[in-house]
């Protein structure tokens, strides 16, 4: 049902529904899948790269710190060994180490009161870099009291080397620095470790570390951030945050994820601007710091976005290209088809001269168009043929109607119109003729040969239509020509027969009855040439057949001597003549009307007048052959012999 509805509508909308929309949906699906893949792969790639970068820089930092850390260790071992005994040598050594060891800002040796330098409570020699040279100073109160500082107190208390949280070395290096502090001890004579003697340190300027980190390239707008053990920001591009803010205050989620010593790559916010970002982190083992590389999210996905954008453009171009080409195809089909439809409407409206002159490139439509053109041409030809044929037929019909009128006019007028005839009143006569086609082969005639003798003629030419009509006309004319008071019935028949035999090559013949009734005496002379004999219906209602000698139909046997029969009518007698079209009328069941039915009808209607009688018979025959095409002409003729009227 749904599918059927999809197939409805114009070609163009069908293309859209069945091709463009599914194609677009498919492409969008593919695009969606590819997008997911691209983003996932972008994250993976970014993770791998970022983690790697984080590790590399953490390790680099680690190594630098580890290297620097060896310096105070060396100091401690040296002092514990007791090889350096005087202050002069110590000061030179310290200055020498600082000037020759790259990567450290300064180095300090802080002693317990009255240990290395007797009578000195605060003995703390310090060498540091300043303006490219190595300076040396002894840190003494009130400017600097090393006993108050964490870097001295914590190693002393805990008894091991450590990194001190970054601090501003007020009065010392006067820079933001981180310090490695290593405690050293007196050495007992047996070589074992004695009491705490002091702390050896090196300072690494935070600026130096920051400078190193700021040179680390993290994508394009990303940056590196270094966190202290306690989560304080040691280095980041925003100088205002350095040493003053803990990461926890900026991005607690990130701060909790970055467990000391762990690695990771997480999606969170950029702690500096709170935009979405990806952060890779790795530990700097030596100092227990954490290095974080922050990538803004849009940078991680920049390539993915670009690829996606390109793909979107490709998909859009592909779908719109598909749509446009399908639209063009649909139009190239539907436009000529629409024009064909319009042309068909015009032609249906009668404009047969309309020509379809559209150039069509599509083979199927082209075939349709040429078939259409051919159809129009043929239609026009047929129309003209038909017009011609109907004109011809109209003419033929007109001529046939004229022929029918002529034929009918050859028949005698109604008996009632013949009142001028002598002895008219002593006879009643009525005849009906009904041709099967426009013209027929049946005929009848009646005329007075002399004041007393009435000739009656009824005939049936074999066949029907125009040939029969012509033969009938000839026969009737021959009778009119040859009938004369002087001639006998037999003589007239012989002459007419001979004349018709001359035309026998047509195969035509005519069966007929020629009767001459003396209306005064009631004598009937009858000659039957192959025709059904007439009936006589007496006034008493008795029916009999008037049987005379049989003669062959006219036009068959030349020089035939026709014999006649003579009968005497009594007043009140009626004669009924007919052609075989009556008794041989078929009905739809191919049954004949039969003589029997005619005889029964005549007997039953014996008291009717002659015109009623003929009409009754015709009506009954028509009833019989209802719905069946009349195959033969019908003729009935009834004569009522009244007898001579007195007065």
């Amino acid at each position, binding site marked *: 049902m749904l599918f059927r509805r999809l197939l409805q509508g114009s070609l163009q909308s069908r293309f859209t529904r069945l091709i463009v929309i599914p194609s677009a949906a498919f492409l969008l699906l593919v695009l969606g899948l590819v997008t997911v893949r691209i983003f996932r792969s972008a994250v993976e790639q970014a993770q791998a790269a970022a983690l790697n970068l984080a590790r590399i820089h953490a390790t680099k930092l680690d190594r630098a710190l580890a290297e620097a850390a060896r310096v105070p260790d060396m100091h401690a071992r040296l002092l514990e060994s007791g090889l350096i005994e005087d202050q002069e040598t110590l000061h030179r050594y310290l200055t020498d180490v600082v000037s020759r060891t790259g990567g450290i800002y300064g180095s300090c040796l802080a002693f317990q009161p009255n240990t290395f330098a007797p009578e000195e409570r605060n003995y703390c020699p310090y060498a540091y870099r300043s303006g490219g040279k190595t300076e040396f100073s002894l840190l003494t109160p009130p400017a600097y009291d090393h006993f108050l500082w964490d870097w001295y107190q914590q190693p002393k208390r805990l008894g091991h080397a450590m990194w001190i949280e970054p601090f501003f070395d007020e009065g010392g290096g006067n820079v933001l620095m981180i310090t490695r502090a290593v405690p050293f001890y007196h050495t007992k004579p047996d070589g074992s470790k004695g009491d705490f003697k002091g702390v050896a340190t090196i300072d690494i300027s935070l600026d130096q570390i920051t400078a190193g980190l700021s040179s680390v390239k993290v994508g394009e707008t990303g940056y590196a951030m270094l966190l202290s053990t306690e989560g304080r920001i040691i280095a980041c591009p925003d100088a205002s945050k350095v040493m003053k803010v803990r990461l926890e205050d900026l991005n607690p989620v990130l701060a909790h994820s970055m467990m000391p010593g762990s690695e990771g790559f997480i999606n969170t916010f950029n702690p500096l601007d709170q935009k979405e970002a990806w952060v890779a982190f790795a530990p700097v083992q030596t100092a227990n710091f954490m290095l974080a590389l922050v990538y803004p999210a849009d940078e991680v996905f920049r390539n993915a976005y670009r690829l996606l954008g390109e793909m979107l453009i490709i998909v859009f171009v592909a779908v719109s290209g598909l749509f446009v080409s399908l639209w063009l195809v649909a139009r190239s089909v539907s436009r000529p088809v629409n024009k064909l439809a319009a042309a068909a409407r015009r032609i249906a409206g009668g404009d047969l001269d309309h020509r379809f002159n559209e150039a069509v490139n599509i083979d199927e439509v082209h075939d349709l168009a040429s078939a259409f053109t051919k159809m129009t041409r043929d239609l026009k030809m047929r129309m003209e043929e038909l017009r011609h044929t109907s004109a011809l037929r109209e003419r033929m019909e007109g001529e046939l109607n004229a022929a029918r009128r002529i034929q009918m006019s050859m028949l005698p007028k109604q008996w009632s119109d013949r009142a001028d005839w002598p002895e008219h009143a002593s006879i009643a006569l009525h005849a009906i003729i009904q041709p099967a086609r426009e013209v027929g082969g049946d005929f009848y005639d009646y005329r007075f040969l002399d004041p007393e003798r009435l000739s009656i003629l009824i005939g049936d030419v*074999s066949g029907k239509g125009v040939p029969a009509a012509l033969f009938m006309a000839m026969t009737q004319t021959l009778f009119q020509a040859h009938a004369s008071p002087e001639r006998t019935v037999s003589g007239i028949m012989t002459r007419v027969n001979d004349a018709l035999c001359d035309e026998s090559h047509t195969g035509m013949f005519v069966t007929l009855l020629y009767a001459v009734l003396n209306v005064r005496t009631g004598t009937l002379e009858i000659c039957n040439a192959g025709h059904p004999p007439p009936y006589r219906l007496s006034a008493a209602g008795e029916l009999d057949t008037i049987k005379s000698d049989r003669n062959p139909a006219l036009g068959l*046997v030349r020089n035939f001597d026709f014999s006649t029969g003579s009968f005497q009518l009594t007043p009140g007698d009626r004669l009924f003549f007919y052609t*075989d079209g009556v008794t*041989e009328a078929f009905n739809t069941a191919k049954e004949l009307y039969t003589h029997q039915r005619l005889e029964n009808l005549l007997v039953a209607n014996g008291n009717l007048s002659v015109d009623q009688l003929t009409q009754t018979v015709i009506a009954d025959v028509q009833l019989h052959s209802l719905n069946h095409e009349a*195959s033969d002409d019908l003729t009935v003729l009834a004569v009522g012999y009244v007898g001579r009227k007195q007065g």
Partner: protein
Amino acid sequence: MTLESEILPDLTLAKLSGQVDTLTATELEMKLGDLAEVTKRALLVDCSDLTYINSAGLRVFLIVAKKMETAGGLCAFCSLTPNVRLVFETIGFDRILKLYENRAVALEQIAPPQAQAA
């Protein structure tokens, strides 16, 4: 109306069945005319199954018979049913056409056995 025919060397047998009225007479004229064309010597029309014929049909018989006679041949009819025979006689065709009681008599008269064997 149906017309079955059998063409022998010197005799064509045609068996006419059914009704021949004015409408079917045209068809009969065509078929029987064609048969007369191909017949060399004699055409025998067997009317044993002919139930009805009228003057239009008889005209066809007349034309065919005349055509055969003109060509020096022979045309005969046999086994007429009483109805048909009555029509023949009424119109006088028994006088001008050769009619036989049945096929055997007709064959004996038209084509003697020895001729048939040949």
